[in-house]
């Protein structure tokens, strides 16, 4: 890899100096700040997503701890009502949009192209753009901490008409809700852009022989998730546009006095909102479907059914949104229909659980840390799923809705589900990404702390909910029978917090000092393990040819065939002038920056500034288009045609 040779831009004869307007000069730095700001490398973008997401996870976690401190004892005065409301709004918004989703996106970016044997995503610059948009949205959402308006205090689903200027503005020009609207809007654009890119990448950039039914499950779930994002975000985009128009231009979408119907917001939000929760869980299920077979040393049990049920969950997910609205008086027929549809989702989800157990059955289970998190996932997610089914029984939900029972349900599926799987994924792919291995002792210790802390925090919430404790309440009275359990929850949250702290500390330590790991430390099954760690810029010296599900496993067990094929592809590639890589570019960050600036001016009602921001977006996009994709060639030493260049 050291012997990477670079030639000029594509389309130039070697040696001819390219003449380009200065504005189109491509940055070429491979290290340093500029290299990160202009990167188009899916791995670096994945890393950016991952680091931002983990930082925001800590922020969201701290907000959660504030919530728990306030609720530790009845009628606490730690936070005011107002601050508390801001806390849970930002806690949820941060966790969902700034932590779990981008953490999934980090894996999509980093792992998915490696799993399909690609050298990058289909539109590398667009990929960078998606990240910078994400960061812009995140900044906008969090600006409230530093200005008079404060953070939004409307709950993460912002039910109208509480979000209209009449009810949410504390003073003229209060922009907290506008920040929420703009932030989510931009995050939505980012997610959609990113997902379109993933869809094209997965459909179009698969290695030879990698048919759809040989895709690793994680890649499949990436695809399904990308579809969910692309098809559900428009609904919230429209809802937010309508709200923005109401707040800024005096329209009447949710203006009750002019006949507006707030219930419309609920529908539009949950048309997005329910697919959104599957956007949070499907990548997690994908990760689990990679981890379990690796550590059971067996192929996934019932691969086609797992894939099909994933797609099925995604599809059904569009038909159940009103289960968040069982108490809005939809009438008997509608309630019944959504109730049954919701229950139906338990079937494909159950299928996945059964198949994971089937995979474990008869395996040689290696109880490494990722496997612990994966098993924890199966237990905890199942548990959360069951409380989901209890919600789905609409009349029972009439007692549970808006109570801590719901809080318990969704933390079980979100933490016990999504978060556990993502933590498993970090552990699992850490050696690949950084070439170092996390210590088993500390890894397991953090697992047990997190596992115990999590259950101590959230299990009692079921009882609190059934005992009538409503959610989103800054204070509760001491005579309601909720005191003891709330204290338990708070203690649990701190155990959980310590677990998370240990987890992070271990990761940081390992990054600097951890034990070096060789290639393929887990005896992996999928293509990402076939490359050196950390992966070189161009990922694969040789694009692999795939014969079977679990392509790398097959390669390892058919060395001669693999070597032959690799020699052939090396020759083919060399005849095309080497490995083609996309050039870096300034315009993704410039364009996203324009949107950030425009949005910030807009929420402050400075229209010329907003227009200037839009103009910057436009200029950025034009220059982007005229700049062209660019590209250069690399010639890794091991990919020179010649005998004996198998990977193994």
């Amino acid at each position: 890899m050291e012997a990477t040779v670079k030639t000029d831009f594509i389309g130039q004869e070697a040696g001819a100096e390219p003449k380009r307007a200065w504005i189109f000069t491509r940055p070429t730095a491979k290290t340093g700040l500029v290299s990160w700001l202009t990167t188009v490398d899916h791995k670096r973008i994945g890393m950016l997503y991952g680091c931002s997401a983990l930082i925001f996870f800590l922020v969201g976690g701290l907000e959660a701890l504030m919530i728990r401190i306030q609720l530790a004892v009845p009628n606490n005065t730690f936070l005011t009502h107002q601050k508390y409301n801001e806390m849970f709004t930002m806690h949820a918004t941060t966790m969902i949009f700034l932590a779990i989703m981008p953490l999934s996106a980090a894996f999509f970016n980093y792992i998915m192209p490696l799993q399909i044997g690609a050298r990058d995503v289909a539109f590398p610059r667009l990929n960078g753009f998606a990240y910078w948009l994400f960061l812009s949205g995140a900044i906008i959402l969090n600006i409230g901490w530093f200005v008079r308006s404060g953070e939004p205090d409307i709950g993460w689903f912002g039910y109208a008409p509480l979000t209209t200027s009449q009810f949410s503005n504390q003073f003229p020009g209060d922009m907290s809700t506008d920040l929420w609207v703009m932030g989510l809007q931009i995050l939505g654009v980012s997610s959609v852009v990113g997902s379109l890119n993933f869809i094209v990448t997965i459909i179009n950039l698969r290695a030879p022989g990698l048919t759809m039914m040989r895709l690793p499950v994680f890649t499949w779930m990436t695809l399904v998730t990308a579809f969910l994002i692309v098809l559900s975000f428009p609904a919230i985009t429209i809802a937010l546009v309508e709200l923005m128009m109401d707040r800024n231009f005096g329209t009447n979408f949710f203006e009750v006095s002019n006949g507006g119907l707030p219930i419309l917001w609920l529908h539009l939000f949950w048309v997005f909102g329910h697919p959104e929760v599957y956007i949070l869980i499907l990548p997690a299920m994908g990760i689990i479907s990679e981890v379990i077979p690796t550590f059971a040393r067996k192929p996934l049990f019932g691969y086609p059914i797992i894939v099909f049920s994933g797609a099925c969950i995604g599809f059904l997910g569009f038909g159940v949104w009103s289960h968040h609205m069982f108490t809005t008086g939809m009438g008997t027929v509608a309630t019944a229909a959504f109730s049954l549809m919701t229950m139906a989702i338990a079937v494909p989800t159950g299928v996945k659980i059964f198949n994971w157990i089937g995979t474990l059955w008869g395996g040689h289970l290696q109880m490494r840390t990722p496997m612990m998190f994966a098993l924890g996932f199966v237990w905890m997610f199942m548990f959360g799923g069951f409380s989901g089914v209890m919600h789905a029984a609409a009349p029972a939900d009439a007692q549970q809705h808006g109570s801590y029972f719901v809080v318990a349900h969704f933390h079980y599926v979100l933490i016990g589900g999504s978060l556990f799987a993502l933590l498993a994924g970090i552990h699992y792919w850490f050696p690949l990404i950084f070439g170092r291995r996390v210590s088993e002792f500390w890894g397991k210790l953090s697992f047990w702390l997190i596992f115990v802390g999590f259950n101590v925090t959230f299990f009692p919430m079921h009882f609190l909910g059934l005992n009538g404790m409503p959610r989103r309440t800054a204070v509760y009275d001491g005579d309601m029978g909720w005191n003891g359990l709330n204290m338990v929850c708070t203690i649990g949250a701190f155990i959980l917090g310590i677990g998370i702290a240990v987890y992070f500390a271990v990761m940081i330590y390992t990054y600097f000092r951890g034990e070096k790991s060789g290639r393929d430390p887990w005896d992996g099954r999928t293509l990402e393990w076939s490359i050196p760690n950390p992966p070189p810029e161009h990922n694969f010296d040789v694009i692999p040819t795939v014969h079977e599900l679990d392509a790398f496993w097959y390669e390892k067990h058919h060395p001669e065939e693999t070597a032959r094929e690799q020699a052939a592809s090396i020759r083919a590639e060399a005849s095309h002038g080497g490995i083609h890589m996309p050039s870096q570019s300034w315009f993704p960050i410039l364009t996203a920056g324009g949107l950030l600036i425009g949005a910030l001016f807009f929420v402050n009602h400075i229209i010329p500034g907003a227009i200037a921001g839009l103009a910057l977006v436009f200029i950025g996009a034009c220059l982007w288009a005229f700049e062209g994709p660019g590209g250069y060639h690399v010639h890794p030493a091991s990919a020179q045609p010649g005998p004996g260049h198998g990977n193994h």
Partner: protein
Amino acid sequence: MSSHASAIDHHHDLTTSTGIPNKKLFMWAFLASDCMFFGTLISTHLIYRLHQTPNSPDPRAVFSIELTSFSTFILLMSSLLMALAVNAIQKGNLRTTRLTLLGTIFFGLIFLGCQVYEFSHFVSEKHLTITNCIFGSTFFTLTGTHGCHVAIGVLWLALMYVRTFKPANADAGRKPWFALSLVHFVVFIISLVLAVYLVLGLVHTAQTEGLGGAGLGSFAGSHALALVGAAVCLVTLVSFARVRGPVDFGEANAIDVESMGLYWHFVDIVWIVIFTAVYLLEYI
């Protein structure tokens, strides 16, 4: 720069797994997403039509179906030109491509002009504003969002048009093509403004005086300067459209034009739905 010698297969791209070019796939996925986008927006409008508010005006008294039918027709014609542009570039026919692109832009602008006129007419004559009733809010937001899509499409078309002048790489250093295209673009913007202005004037004349000889006469009289300006602009644009020297743009870029075309056609079919659901349904 793959070789121009070998024929380009426009429906298959051998470098991708499915044979579908990346850009085309991207565009179709985006359009699928846009279906949901307009779906929810149209739903909002229809829901509020289902539950009318007392202060909502009678849409029939507001709409002018003649104008809307005209702009629907215009949009259809622009779609035709767009399809022809794709057809032309796929055969490497740059000149036809440029002309059809210009034609598409032109029709797109007329559509936008009609919409601007419609909006200002509704506001000033029919007292339907975005704030005074729900019908106004949903109507303007829906058609306005569609209009934004058209406007973005027009911008895109214009950029594509400018791009067709980028000289082939060998000449990159010599020709100030970028500066030229900026001039070009400015001319284009001027004609854009003029076109909107003229269409507005024309429609207004049609409404007030009818399109008889007298009407046209008075229209030409009062808009003489703009007409001359527009003519100059058009001539300039057409002269820019001449092919001079080798350019970068060619058959290989057909996919760019084609994905732009997909977008444009989609905007057109959204209008087909809006025309039926928002306008025509009010008349039964």
